[in-house]
């Protein structure tokens, strides 16, 4: 395969290093579970994990012991409850003599603004948020800034520049030119902000497919270091047009994650004892995969015009 196509094992081994700041972004949509599991499997350590919504994937990664710090804006199992493995590393009653997880907390717009500042190489990003809340006290990196045009004061957040950002997408070409439809979250900003980027896709397509609709391109290959082809790599989250969220998994995770032993047993069964995503998909079974397939809703085509 030409270009930047790599196996997940090689991409994670080469591009994710102990001590890195890692952002796996994707807001409810396109969550990079396959990449997260490979990071657990390779026993990376001392990572700072950044993500707006840590979701199950960071609960699993933190249970797997890869992280020393978490940067986030909403810590929950969406529609279900809390993230129990993470809470065990934050609430003193549960942490006990263990090592607590360091946390650095923002609001959603604060996280988006941090990635945007990082992507735009700005020393800060202003926003109208945080007024009269306790968040700037909890996180001294949220700072007031005065407008040069009036007496008005707003808040600022600093840039977030991950060492590596990992995103999942519907399709890319071998050079990493990546297209996404459906929710876009902050993937573009997180990818441009990063030093290195890994794109994991459902489908590898010919460059001509990308070039036929250049407005659909979210990430240019220019900033991509590796393209990993990994169908169903976002399960149990979803991929618009390809598969639905596997809600049963989100529900099942709650009782598993409430118990440390069950959590570790789950990691053994579904991560450590499997050699990669293909084995995971096999184990999940064709029936369950098939049940997640949506009907069809085509976008229609537009004409860019041939100008010569």
């Amino acid at each position: 395969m030409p270009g930047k196509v790599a196996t997940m094992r090689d991409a994670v081994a080469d591009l994710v290093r102990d001590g890195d700041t890692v952002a796996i972004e994707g807001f409810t949509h396109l969550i990079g579970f396959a990449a997260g599991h490979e990071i657990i499997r390779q026993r990376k350590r001392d990572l700072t994990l950044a993500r707006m919504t840590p979701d199950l994937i960071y609960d699993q990664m933190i249970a797997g012991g890869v992280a020393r710090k978490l940067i986030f804006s909403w810590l929950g199992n969406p529609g279900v409850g809390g993230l129990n493995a993470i809470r065990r590393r934050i609430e003193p009653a549960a942490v006990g003599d263990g090592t607590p997880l360091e946390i650095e907390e923002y609001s959603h717009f604060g996280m988006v603004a941090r990635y945007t500042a990082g992507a735009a190489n700005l020393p800060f990003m202003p926003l109208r948020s945080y007024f009269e809340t306790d968040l700037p006290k909890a996180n001294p990196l949220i700072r007031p800034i005065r407008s040069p045009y009036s007496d008005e004061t707003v808040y600022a957040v600093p840039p977030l520049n991950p060492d590596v950002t990992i995103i999942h997408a519907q399709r890319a070409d071998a050079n990493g030119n990546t297209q996404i439809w459906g929710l876009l979250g902050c993937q573009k900003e997180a990818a441009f902000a990063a030093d290195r980027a890994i794109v994991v896709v459902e489908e590898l397509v010919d460059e001509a497919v990308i070039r036929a609709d250049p407005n659909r391109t979210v990430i240019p290959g220019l900033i991509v270091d590796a393209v990993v082809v990994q169908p169903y790599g976002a399960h149990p989250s979803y991929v618009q047009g390809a598969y639905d969220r596997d809600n049963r998994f989100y529900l099942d995770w709650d009782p598993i994650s409430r118990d440390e032993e069950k959590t570790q047993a789950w990691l053994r069964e579904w991560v450590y004892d499997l050699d990669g995503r293909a084995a995971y998909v096999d184990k999940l079974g064709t029936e369950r995969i098939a049940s997640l397939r949506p009907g069809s809703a085509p976008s229609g085509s537009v004409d860019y015009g041939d100008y010569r």
Partner: protein
Amino acid sequence: MSEPFSKSEMMIVAAARELAGQHVCFVGVGLPNIAVNLAKRTVAPDLELVYEAGVFGARPARLPLSIGDPTIVTGATAVVSMFELFAFYLQRGLIDVGFLGAAQIDRFGNLNSTVIGDYAAPKTRLPGSGGACEIAINARNVFVIMRQSTRSFVERIDFRTSPGNLGGAEQAEAIRRAGGWNGRGPSVVVTDLGIWHFDEAGEMRLDFLHPGATLDEVRATIAWEPRISPSLATTPAPTAVELRLVREELDPEGVYTK
């Protein structure tokens, strides 16, 4: 005579009716989502649904399981980055109503969804702000939906995630105006027992008691001595049409309404 209904159904219907006359609504999952969809089918047919995940003009074909369910994307009017949603829609002042819930609320409608206990060593670590703090600041009106209990309707919240009327209406109004906030603050709190608006002092005032609920119940589930409207009324019970929409169309499996 009306059909029997659950407390959740009453909350949904009460919240939906409050949306009459509103145009653009920031939707949360769960009860707010059902309330907004009910309002669109009853009192506010032109209501536009905005999801913080980046969707404007959503037309969910099923009850969304999360705020980022794929069903809110397919058939929507616009899908945009979260930067754009928060900057150009919310911060620009285009959102009329934002829904918020919380673990704690005080008499002035200030909300805590961050921690119970001390921030550095919490008794319970909650989800945190998400978009709540910016919704509280920049949505024109904030609707709160919460079940009453003395653990959540408290004299003093442990952490202020989302500002409401701060220490009172006068102070809050001055600060909101001087700081250029788009939001006018909380306008209603819908609970399992009744409907609260905010009086001139910026404090919660019980205006409607749901059918079957009592003032004793209200007082027993709130940590301060609540203000009760002198013209306290009973919330009209859900109509047959409202119940049918909720039960048959919006939450046929009763996930949120049982």
